[in-house]
């Protein structure tokens, strides 16, 4: 939808940044920075939400928000064109 995505988050690896079951709005950006929470089309894990790490011109790495997450090594480097957008808004239960 013109660079915008609305998804529901499942899993706990981004807690407390994103609670399981919350809704999140992502917007495609020209470039991303370390610490951005990204929606990614991962070649192995499908559509996932993770935090950007070591963002470079050709690759960037991913990490979770807590120790339950898949490790950055497991997820491996990804290319910027696999990123669908950066978290810009979230709606939680009661919010």
């Amino acid at each position, binding site marked *: 939808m013109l660079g915008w995505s609305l998804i*529901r988050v499942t899993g706990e690896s981004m807690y407390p940044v994103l609670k399981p079951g919350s*809704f999140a709005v992502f917007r495609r950006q020209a470039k991303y920075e370390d610490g951005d929470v990204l*929606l990614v089309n991962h070649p192995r894990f*499908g559509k996932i939400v993770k935090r950007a790490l070591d963002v470079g011109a050709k690759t960037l790495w991913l990490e*979770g928000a807590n120790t339950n*997450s898949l490790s950055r090594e497991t997820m491996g480097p990804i290319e910027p064109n696999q990123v669908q957008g950066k978290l810009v808004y979230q*709606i939680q239960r*009661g919010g």
Partner: protein
Amino acid sequence: MIYTILNYLDRKGLIGRASAHCDIPCGIYDPGPALIAAVSVVRLMDIAHDGASEDPVALANLRARCTLRKEEEAEKVKQEVRVIWGDYFKAPLLEAHPNVHGLVHAIMQKASACKQDVHREDGLALVELVNEFAEIFWQTKSVETVRKTCPYPPKLKLVYPVLAD
């Protein structure tokens, strides 16, 4: 309000999902084995107390076996509960059920008491604590529970999930 609308749209399948993947995606946890082990502790105490053989060697053998198995079943209670508590209960669930830490600690202590001695009241208390743990576990799954008398000795009330088809 917005969440409620989005929740409705999500249930209609209109909103995609993205996973915040965790380390192990198996997700298979069940307090049932812990409950069976807890009941077994009581049963083994009963058998040890009721052993009525006139042969002292046979009686010693029976009680030795009961003691050994009681030790193993009590340890199994601890192991099963520790895994659910340590691996399944994560921050959001702990926020919703802050008493879990204290309950698990009480289970560890009571299971140890059951290993150390043969007081039936300790065994019954262990079953009750694991029942409470099972009820909390199923609450986190939004599954209703019922307490029914188990269909085998020592015929104690246990927590069972009321599962849909």
